[in-house]
């Protein structure tokens, strides 16, 4: 095919363009809602943009983005390996609670020891939550979506229960845990924050998130482990035929995915929350992770960017009420973006139909060439 690609073909075949178009459409729909409500679109979107573009605003965005990125990686990893980790919510919750317990009870430990311990505890907790589901699936064939939904709630009540244990529970009246030890905090120093004018919760968790992004990319693309997990995700029968242990791979994939979501919980707690409240409903980090993974096309670096984008919407959205616009507008915009991303597969389908025709044409070209060769002989 030496034919130059037309503009339409370029648009229809480029995944990145689909995402950008979906985002534009999302904001367009948001604008329509604003206009219907009689609000100024310019003012609202202006506020949204100005609140995230200042240095301080952007530092907020980054802080917001940290858990979204890491949970997004968790979901993206699960997509790549053929499971749908709708259980990231629960893994996030147990991960953040494990980090809290270690961070509270281990207050005597020095910072270089306590912080890695918190990370490890959170990852272990998330991984265990993932493995339980994997075990139910491989051992008894229990549908993983169903058990993940159940274990999200078990995690939620377990966290509330632990938060109520006297050794963990706040000494004051707050319905929450104690604050974690300063030695478990990832916050940047006060002086540094003030000197640059960053937000008060600025922390170095983003470095962990970036490291996790690179690591996930490396494992998926470059290692034999990634090869195994992807093979099982794409075709578990062929993988088994090729000698890969399918059940072990499913467990490994869920453990890694769970560990990432758990780590997300720790990063959120150690950088931003510093304690865990007793909630009456789920916070929804797991679902945010699904959205981020979808916007990021399940590509680790795509997830990194999508996480920051989502963080910007969430932080900027919280400022919308200053201009009289409801903050829920953000959910409508994001929902619309995801909706159009879902629809954009229509381009992929078209491509598939076209490639089938190409394949037939190719097969015939080969046969014709063969015939001509025969004739020459």
């Amino acid at each position, binding site marked *: 095919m030496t034919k130059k690609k037309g503009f339409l073909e370029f648009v229809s075949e480029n995944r990145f363009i689909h995402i950008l178009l979906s985002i534009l459409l999302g904001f367009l729909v948001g604008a329509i809602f604003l206009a219907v409500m009689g609000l100024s679109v310019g003012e609202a979107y202006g506020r949204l943009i100005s609140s995230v573009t200042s240095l301080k605003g952007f530092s907020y965005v980054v802080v917001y983005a940290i858990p979204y990125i890491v949970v997004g990686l968790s979901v993206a990893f699960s997509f790549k390996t053929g499971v749908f980790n709708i259980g990231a919510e629960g893994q996030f919750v147990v991960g953040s609670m494990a980090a809290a317990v270690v961070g509270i009870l281990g207050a005597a430990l020095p910072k270089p020891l306590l912080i890695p311990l918190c990370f490890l505890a959170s990852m272990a907790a998330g991984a265990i939550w993932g493995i339980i589901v994997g075990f139910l699936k491989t051992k008894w064939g229990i549908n993983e979506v169903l058990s993940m939904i159940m274990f999200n709630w078990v995690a939620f009540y377990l966290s509330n229960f632990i938060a109520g244990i006297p050794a963990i529970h706040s000494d004051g009246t707050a319905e929450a845990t104690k604050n974690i030890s300063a030695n478990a905090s990832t916050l940047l120093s006060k002086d540094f924050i003030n000197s640059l004018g960053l937000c008060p919760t600025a922390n170095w968790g983003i470095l962990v998130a970036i490291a996790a992004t690179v690591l996930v990319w490396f494992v998926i693309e*470059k*290692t*034999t*482990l*990634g*090869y*195994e997990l*992807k*093979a099982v995700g*794409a*075709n578990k*029968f*062929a*993988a*088994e*035929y*090729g*000698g*890969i*242990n399918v059940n072990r791979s499913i467990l490994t994939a869920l453990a890694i995915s769970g560990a990432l979501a758990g780590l997300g919980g720790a990063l959120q707690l150690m950088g931003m929350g510093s304690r865990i409240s007793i909630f009456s409903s789920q916070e929804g980090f797991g679902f945010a992770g699904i959205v981020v993974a979808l916007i990021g096309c399940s590509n680790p670096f795509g997830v990194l960017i999508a996480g920051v984008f989502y963080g910007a919407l969430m932080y900027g959205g919280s400022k919308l009420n200053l201009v009289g616009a409801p903050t829920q507008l953000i959910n409508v915009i994001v929902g619309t973006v995801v909706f159009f991303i879902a629809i954009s597969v229509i381009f992929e389908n078209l491509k598939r*139909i*076209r*490639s*089938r*025709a*190409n*394949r*037939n*044409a*190719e*097969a*015939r070209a*080969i*046969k*014709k060439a*063969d*015939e001509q060769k*025969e004739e020459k002989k």
Partner: protein
Amino acid sequence: MAKQYVDMNTPVIEMRNIVKKFGDFTANDGINLTVHKGEIHAILGENGAGKSTLMNQLYGLLKPTSGDILVNGKKIEMNNPRDAIAAGIGMVHQHFMLVQPFTVTENIVLGTEPTKGLSLDMVTARKNVVEISERYGLSIDPDARIEDISVGMQQRVEILKALYRGADILILDEPTSSLTPQEIVELIDIMHNLVKDGKSIIIITHKLKEIKESADFCTIIRLGKYIGTVDVETVTENDLASMMVGRNVTFKVDKPAQEPGEVVLDVQDLHCLDYRGVEIVRGLDLQVRRGEIIGIAGIDGNGQTELVEVITGLRKGTSGKVLVNGVDVFNKSPNFGFRHGVSSIPADRQKHGLVLDFSIEDNLILQNYGKEPFSDKNILQRDPIFKHASQSIEKYDIRPGNSEKRPAGTLSGGNQQKVIIAREVQNDKDLLIAVNPTRGLDVGAIEYVHKYIVDQRNKGKAVLLVSFELDEIMSLSDIIDVIFDGKIVASIPGKDANENDLGLMMAGGKKE
């Protein structure tokens, strides 16, 4: 008996100068077809020649880009299958269009269900189904679920579905591809009964023998073009083959005589259960020696699939031994068997053989991704992987070339099979198991696959061939083992075998 029911004055189907384009690709390029009342008309062509595209237009699933379709002399515009059904056309697809958990009756009446008030009238439905099955002598169990009945039975249900809708013209797409020899004979009987009754039948196939046995006329299509229509009585199988392929074809496989060596595969008193928990392999013994091809002939469902699954480690058996070069691989992992000398070409290449989303280079290392030079300390080494793929593509003639990074799913069936053969042959194991290795391939690709299987034998490998194509078993095997009811019931030298005896033994009868 050919043409005895054909009424040459009454054309029921006329397709005139049919052109069908998908984008730039012309699938049908000016095809003509005339079918008369009481006629069995074969359409012959290789895979991808455009046979199914043509029939899908006749059945309203696709719309022609140009050209006319006449049914009973009247020009008809078909927008969907409903129009075709209304015009009296019925189609039996190669992949059966049956809802597995539904009963025979439910499948037959689906879409034209009798009702009583708000609810379905299954009593009337059942009565109608029994009536029509008796009328055409197609006996079925109206209450059985599709998932519980044999492939031959399922085909009857498909034919009944068309008759139930009042079809006078039946299109059968590759109807014999999954039938046993006995079932094929029955099908040809059924077809003759139907044309006697005034029906017309179009049969799409690339099996020459069946055309000779059943059809009155045959239309040949090659690379989307109309080649011609012939009176079947006046041509030989070889004539048909060269019209189809466009060159002379040899069906003979060259196989030098050689003495087999020591035993590689030794299966002893093997038992295993099928997916329903019923014992399907029941005390099976089997040996394959170096330098010989053992062909397993048998009707689907007699344990051959499960036998191969146990040998390759995909299924657990209940008891017995599977020795490969003296090592027992029984109930070990597929990987263990592979390490001790088992390689195989699986029956379902898209399910077991390939990861369709993976590139060709990645598919070529499916068992070896963890070994040098393809990986080093668990990191994949892309350069050696790529080089390996380039060499394989060259050596095994995988088309198109330079396709190392292309997803395997974008290749044609024949080339997908070449990828698997390249992988398994290069694994260089002592035992090669091939299950239906040429299913769905066209003549050129079949020749190619057969050549490689015989090559392995000539190189002193042990080859176990399982196939539902008797012709294939008979032309390749040194020894044919007949499997029936989970046991090997007969073992005969390949050169002495004939189709009738084999067919009888496969059905559980004794050779007289």
